[in-house]
């Protein structure tokens, strides 16, 4: 074999090796979570709340799994993520459309820069801000406060993904719509936004999956609750918050793995759906 072919082979092996290495952490995480968490997952896990520390201890002593589950976390995460998305999606879409349509104005440059900064703000700071802005004035920890923190976190993600998606649309699409004598507004609403649906939806799903696993912004805002709570003005739990609380209770540590496995699967499903949607609705 000539030197060139050997070099080529070596390069190929090295590239494959390192690509393989990136898969290892994810595979290892999933394996670990499944191994330690699967036996906790049953119907009760989704419909009941965690037991108190004594019951958990007694159950474990007698060789059973910890009774109960994370229903309070599931409902709380659902409520807060939905509320955050309801706020962030319209704001983010409009801002993103504006940035892609008028990229050269001073205002849009400023918005773009600030969006980048906002994306870099540590999530715990968003939690503290929401505490100061919402929890303090309202006098109570609440799902509203938690969703405000998550909303601020989602916003730059959706703005950016909307902007990028809209910029990727072929420019002749806009021209051909305007050439039919339509107004700018209807071109955006009836042609550009529907055409970029796949990208927009993917961006929203990814933003949701990103904030779904956040703990820090919820610690000072939603606080947590051991009951299933539908009242948005009362303290509410969330799955990642529960994981943190289980960690602080030696008798409930067993619940950590099942909760982690569940949220991990949820986020993986969102991500897989997102990439499917992106592929299916891709505009040529």
């Amino acid at each position, binding site marked *: 074999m000539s030197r060139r072919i050997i070099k080529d082979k070596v390069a190929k092996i090295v590239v494959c090796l390192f690509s393989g290495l990136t898969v290892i952490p994810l595979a290892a995480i999933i394996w670990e979570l499944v191994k330690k968490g699967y036996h906790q997952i049953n119907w009760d896990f989704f419909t009941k709340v965690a037991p108190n520390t004594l019951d958990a201890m007694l159950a474990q002593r007698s060789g059973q799994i910890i009774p109960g589950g994370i229903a309070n976390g599931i409902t709380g995460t659902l409520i807060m993520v939905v509320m955050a998305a309801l706020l962030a999606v319209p704001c983010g879409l409009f801002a993103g459309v504006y940035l892609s349509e008028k990229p*050269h104005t001073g205002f849009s440059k400023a918005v773009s820069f600030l969006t980048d900064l906002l994306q870099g703000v540590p999530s715990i700071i968003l939690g503290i801000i929401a505490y100061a802005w919402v929890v303090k004035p309202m006098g109570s920890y609440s799902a509203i406060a938690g969703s405000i923190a998550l909303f601020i976190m989602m916003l730059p993600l959706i703005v950016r993904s909307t902007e990028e998606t809209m910029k990727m649309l*072929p420019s*002749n*699409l*806009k*021209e*051909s*719509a*305007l*050439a*039919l*004598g*339509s*107004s700018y507004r*209807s*071109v955006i609403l*009836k*042609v550009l936004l*529907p*055409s970029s*649906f796949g990208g927009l939806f993917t961006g929203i799903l990814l933003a949701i999956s990103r904030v779904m696993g956040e703990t820090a912004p919820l610690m000072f805002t939603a606080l947590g609750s051991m009951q299933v709570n539908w009242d948005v003005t009362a303290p509410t739990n969330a799955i990642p918050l529960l994981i943190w609380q289980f960690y602080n209770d030696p008798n409930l540590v067993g619940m950590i793995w099942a909760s982690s496995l569940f949220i991990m699967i949820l986020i993986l499903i969102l991500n897989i759906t997102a990439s499917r949607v992106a592929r299916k609705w891709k*505009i*040529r």
Partner: protein
Amino acid sequence: MENKIIENTVLKFEHVSVSYVPGKNAVDDINADVKEHAITAIMGPSGCGKSTLLRAINRMHELYKGITVSGHILLKGEDIMEMNPMQVRCKAGMVFQRPNPFPTMSVYDNVLAGYKLNGIKLKKSQKDEIVESCLRDVGLWKEVKESLNKKGTFLSGGQQQRLCIARAIALKPEILLMDEPTSALDPIATNKIEQLALELKKIFSIIIVTHNIAQAARISDMSMFMYLGELIEYEKTKIMFTNPKDKRTEDYLNGQFG
């Protein structure tokens, strides 16, 4: 083919200049009368300003900053610069270089896109009628009547382009602007579009920008030759191709440059 040219003017250019950079005209002082029910070809080498001139007619330049259009363009005697740009674009339909049906809309909705986007409400029967007659006009009805609800982007390139023409003529424009409509198509599809243009000129007036000298010779009644932003020659196609007055026109038609 002997084409009878009806000597009515549909469009009049009066001292039309377009500049992308201040002080430098990409299209320089064009004066010409475009005849009704004729195909007028605008020819010239790349960068001579033929598309720029065409896009001045439906005021597409206003979408971009820094482009200035001066002079007057009269559409049926009315100065388009004094009309609402949206109204101008309804009266001057445009077909683009690449077929670009709206990807989210069905074949049916693509034909009606002009109405939908302008918020014009139609009865179902009116819609069906417009869709069928426009698709018949572009020779697409037989090919797509079974798949009106499929997305327009599933059609072949040539079919897509004919769909785009149907979309443009659905609004019953005074004039149809075609910006190199066949440059992305194969010879068979090109031929269909050319035949279609010959049919459509009975109803509409057509201005077609083309790179393809042979195409201009095949289908146009009148030809403009542009070079470096100037209108060098504007003549009946037959006369221009057999007896060009200007040396540059002759060189271009002989393939000396371009």
